[in-house]
């Protein structure tokens, strides 16, 4: 094994991990406020990535330029999903969980079907900024680096939003204690819609970034639901630091197995990591007990 190769793989893995972290953040925001695991999450990521690929091909609009549009489009889609489909879920915890899982499951396959009808089943990727910077014998692929930096920027921006704005504090209050937040006069219904808008917007943004660094077809969506969910679980629900560590680890796993095994096993990695995490480390690596 060459040391340089290993370093290269580590860098690629970590850069990919940044985008995973962003995707997972979207899922986490939604889960925090609504207690709904949005099974259509990965499909929103992939639908955006596919759209970016086609727009780039046809009109030469780069994914970076498309990023604001993706964010807004995702937010609109999220608002629609929450308002039209999830508004009248039963409040009873058990049936709420059931129904929301089944509905988002249905939505996810609706989106798979839609993507298949529009984009066909071909694998796509955006060939933009394909060269790299060489620093001391190590390649920093430009697209990956840019995607990573933008992902961290968006995540940081979201952090500021959640921490220091009134709306952000209301969102966090709703995710910590629903009844308490309601008592304080926070409109829970609005917070739920907002969390969906925010979560799906972030999913779409990570899809736009991902479009440059990954190959995908409509079927890849469930992979991203699971990747995002594993990252959230790895981090422990609600722990953002843990989520970033988790995303880094998952990125490393995909990059190493993809290189030393083969690409098939590379794409199997998210599932395997996911199941292992659930079975052996359901409280996350940084060890906050998961509360459900």
């Amino acid at each position, binding site marked *: 094994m060459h040391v340089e190769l290993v370093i290269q793989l580590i860098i690629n893995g970590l850069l990919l991990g940044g985008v995973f972290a962003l995707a997972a953040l979207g899922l986490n925001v939604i889960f925090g406020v609504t207690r709904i695991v949005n099974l259509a999450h990965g499909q929103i990521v992939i639908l955006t990535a596919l759209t970016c690929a086609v727009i780039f091909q046809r009109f030469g609009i780069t994914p970076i330029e498309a990023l604001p549009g993706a964010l807004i489009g995702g937010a609109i889609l999220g608002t629609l999903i929450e308002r039209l*489909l999830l508004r009248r879920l039963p409040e009873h915890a*058990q049936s709420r969980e059931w129904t929301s899982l*089944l509905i988002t499951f*249905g939505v996810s*396959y609706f989106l798979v079907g839609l993507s298949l009808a529009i984009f066909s089943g071909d694998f796509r990727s955006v060939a933009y900024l394909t060269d790299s910077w060489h620093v001391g014998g190590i390649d920093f692929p430009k697209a990956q680096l840019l995607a990573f930096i933008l992902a961290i920027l968006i995540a940081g921006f979201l952090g500021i939003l959640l921490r220091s704005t009134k709306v952000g504090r209301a969102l966090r209050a709703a995710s910590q204690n629903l009844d308490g937040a309601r008592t304080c006069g926070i409109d829970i219904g609005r917070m739920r819609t907002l969390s969906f808008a925010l979560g799906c917007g972030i999913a779409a943004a990570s899809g736009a970034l991902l479009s440059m660094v990954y190959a995908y077809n409509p079927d890849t969506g469930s992979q991203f639901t699971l990747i995002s969910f594993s990252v959230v679980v790895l981090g422990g629900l609600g722990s953002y630091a843990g989520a970033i560590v988790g995303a880094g680890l998952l990125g490393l796993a995909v990059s190493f197995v993809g290189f030393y095994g083969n690409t098939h096993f590379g794409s199997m990695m998210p599932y*395997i990591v*996911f199941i292992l995490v659930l079975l052996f480390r359901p409280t996350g690596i940084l060890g906050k007990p998961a509360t459900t």
Partner: protein
Amino acid sequence: MNLRILGFAALAVLLLASAMVPLSGNGYILSLVYISLLFTGLAYGWNIISGYAGYLSFGQITFFGIGAYVVAIGTTRFHAEWWLCALIGGAFCAALAVPMGYLMLRLQGPFFALGMLGLAQSLRIATDTIPFTGGAEGIYLPPGSNAVHVYYWTLGVLVLAIVLTAWIDRSAFGLRLRALREDERAAGTLGVDTTSSKVQAFVLSAIIPALLGGGYAWYLTYVEPSSIYSTEIELQTVAMAILGGMGTLWGPLVGGILMSQVSESLSTRFPQTHLMIFGALIVILLIALPRGIVPAISERLNRKKTAAKARPQEAVT
């Protein structure tokens, strides 16, 4: 009570009619009814773990796939009879479901649902890669496939599934499952051995798809990962159980009959948008008829019955 007898009588007529179908010698009708039987059977299998025990699984296709591949490999490499291989596949999945159940059923809600989905997907990718299972090219089964044999096999498995569900619906075991669906911790406190109950339910809902998958492989005469570990089959199964009513004896049957007809006409008219329509259908059903057709009807009938009982008393007072 009378309603139940009526239901079983209707079922008997229906099963007898389907047993006659191969006599007509019409291949097209045979294949239509075969697909309905297949999906209804799958819906019954799914209904045990997800409907009665309340563990939503999006990965029961795993067992369907293993069953199909056991038949494909058994008939090509070991030149065994297909039905023998299908039985072995069923037994293998039952055995596999025990340790798998102990591991996976510790997970709850979305964790279990996604865990099973992940399992099915990784198995599909593994089947795609490993040469033993024929990789992405798949396996051509030896000649000698007979649609009528598979048809009766599937009908038999469906009857088995219905009998099993009828037993669960009435037995203490079924009560235990429903108790843990409503509140697992409370059920445990009341002395229900929740772990072994749900593992048993998991095993039962693994055997049925495995047996059906074995027949399906022999019917298709060709297996390949994406058509066997098919998300469309999974999706359609779930949609049928929801339409009819999860956790009920008649739900999968009603859902199966209605939906396979819809599905057939959809897939011939709009083959491209099959997934899309089924996804949308699940969502619409859950919003419009969240508990399914069967509970909605039986509730209405019960209301009428209690109303009829209540009326004479009202007259007295």
